[in-house]
């Protein structure tokens, strides 16, 4: 039987299913939400099933059509990939529900209803295509295939960002498209260099072939630059805030929580599995320095912003820096694999930042603007949204029960153990900055407005408020799941265990 629980052919479902759903959404424009919801549910189910398979059977490879590499395309699962897949599935389900609430609220608007109907029609297929691209990225085991998924993500993300139709968002999304094209072309050039030196494209075969040659070093540099452009690490972050802040609310959530994680995940895999033998300490320190600048610069910019969505977007720039600070500390993270700190930051950030962007979107829907100065009294009218915002803020700061706390704790201890105290300073300064920008908005929420000038607005539907709250709660209690998540991570963490059997050098 093909569909038994232990069959490896389940692995293609997360890629194929959203692709088909995207096409169906184009065809049946009235049932789009039902199609998307069913897809998101099945996607979540399959992600859980694949994790079950990983725990029972270990790492699985699946060759599409039975063609083995170097000719065929292969998919593979391991701990980090499946946790990212699970993150995408959970966040994706919440985003699907939220987008439904958002569009039905917007379409009920008598003046601009038809425009939002138009936007909704294109939102669902593009979102499904993006989901297919992300799932493909996490599961693919072939560097050229990864290029295709990167392009798929770039195209659908840029189109989604342009959906709101405002001139500012169109300019931002044009720039976003150009940047993502530049990034993927640089990535492709890196692949070419790689292929010339090694002659294979499959990640599993490549694992042992990374030797210290000029071609490989050039390939690493090109791949890194291409992916950094897409991940928006600090000198290359200029496109992110306008693109994320000017998009529709559900689109901002998708872009900020999921899309940047995809390219970061690849970058991390390359640095710590494929190219691990040739990566030098000074290169790791360089990445860490960029991350430190990102944390400080993003935090300071977030404090200076006047609009809520721009503030949340700059907070993304700042939080991405934490992912890169793990690079120089990776050499001393003994005992725990290097993946765990990074995965915890990524998971927490995905949930917390989605909740925050959803809350910001709700505030925008409720008030019709998101100027931070005029946010007084939102707490009284949107209690659940404000609660979600607060909890998400706690996770971003990295206070104890949240998943970010564990990650920051690992980074702090390892930076002090290896007497690289400057990283510890930056990590703590970043938390302080996060506290300032979260509380700055929070304090406005709790101010009671002097005049009773709040105009009567339609109440927000539970679909708008509850996904945000649930995601925020997941981010907050992620550390309680830590043993379980670490167990999954330790399954088939292919690269490091094989490359350094006696611990990291």
């Amino acid at each position: 039987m093909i569909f038994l629980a232990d069959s490896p052919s389940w692995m293609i479902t997360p890629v194929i299913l959203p692709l088909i759903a995207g096409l169906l959404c184009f065809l049946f424009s009235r049932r789009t939400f039902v199609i998307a919801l069913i897809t998101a549910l099945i996607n979540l189910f399959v992600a859980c099933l694949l994790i079950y398979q990983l725990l029972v059977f270990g790492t699985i490879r699946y060759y599409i059509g039975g063609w083995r590499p170097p000719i065929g395309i292969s998919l593979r699962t391991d701990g980090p990939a499946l946790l990212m897949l699970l993150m995408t599935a959970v966040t994706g389900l919440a985003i699907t529900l939220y987008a439904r609430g958002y569009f039905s609220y917007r379409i009920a608007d008598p003046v601009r209803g038809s425009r939002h109907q138009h936007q909704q029609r294109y939102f669902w297929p593009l979102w499904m295509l993006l989901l297919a691209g992300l799932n493909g990225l996490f599961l693919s085991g072939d560097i050229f295939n990864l290029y295709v998924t990167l392009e798929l993500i770039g195209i659908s993300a840029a189109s989604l960002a342009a959906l709101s139709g405002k001139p500012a968002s169109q300019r931002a999304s044009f720039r976003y498209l150009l940047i993502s094209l530049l990034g993927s072309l640089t990535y492709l050039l890196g692949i070419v260099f790689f292929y010339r030196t090694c002659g294979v494209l499959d990640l599993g075969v490549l694992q042992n072939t990374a030797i210290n040659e000029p071609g490989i070093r050039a390939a690493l540099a090109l791949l890194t630059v291409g992916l950094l452009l897409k991940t928006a690490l600090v000198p290359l972050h200029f496109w992110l805030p306008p693109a994320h802040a000017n998009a529709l609310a559900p689109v901002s959530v998708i872009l900020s929580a999921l899309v940047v994680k995809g390219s970061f995940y690849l970058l991390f895999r390359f640095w710590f599995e494929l190219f691990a033998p040739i990566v030098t300490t000074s290169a790791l320190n360089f990445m860490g320095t960029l991350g430190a600048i990102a944390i400080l610069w993003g935090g300071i910019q977030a404090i200076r912003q006047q609009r809520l969505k721009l503030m949340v977007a700059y907070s993304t720039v700042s939080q991405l820096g934490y992912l890169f600070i793990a690079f120089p500390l990776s050499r001393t993270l003994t005992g725990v694999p290097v993946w765990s700190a990074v995965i915890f930051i990524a998971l927490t950030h995905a949930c917390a930042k989605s909740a925050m962007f959803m809350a910001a979107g709700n505030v925008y829907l409720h008030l019709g603007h998101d100027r931070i100065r005029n946010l007084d009294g939102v707490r009284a009218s949107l209690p659940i949204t404000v609660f979600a915002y607060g909890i998400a803020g706690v996770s971003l700061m990295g206070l104890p029960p949240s998943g970010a706390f564990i990650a920051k704790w690992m980074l702090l201890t390892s930076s002090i153990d290896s007497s690289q105290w400057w990283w510890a300073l930056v990590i703590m300064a970043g938390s302080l900055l996060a506290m300032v920008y979260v509380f700055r908005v929070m304090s406005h929420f709790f101010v009671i407005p002097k005049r009773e000038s709040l105009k009567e607005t339609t109440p927000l539907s539970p679909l708008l408020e509850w996904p945000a709250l649930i995601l925020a709660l997941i981010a907050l209690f992620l550390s309680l799941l830590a043993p379980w998540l670490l167990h999954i991570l330790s399954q088939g963490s292919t690269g490091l265990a094989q490359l350094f059997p006696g611990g990291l050098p």
Partner: protein
Amino acid sequence: MITTLLYSLTGLILFGMGLFTLIIHSHPLRKILAINVMASGVFLILIATAYTPLGQGEIDPVPHAMVLTGIVVSVSVTALALILACRVQETSNRTLRKKTKQPKNTKGPKS
């Protein structure tokens, strides 16, 4: 060997020229063309990688497949970029027109 090197160098130069234009020029159409030139450069290097002199072994099919995929991606992306550029142009023109019209309307006898 020398043929491969020659074509690869040409490809790299094309890539560099495209990158230069992409950064220097601000016109959207030029930027899109620059991206296309860069893509052609990469494809040229890939094709050069697959080159084997006549009668000396089989031709490696993988780079050809990669170039074909790359061309398909590049065509569709160019279409998307052109549409977006047109939209940006239209909306900015419309807002320009509104801005120039507005003072006349407010001055008019209607209000």
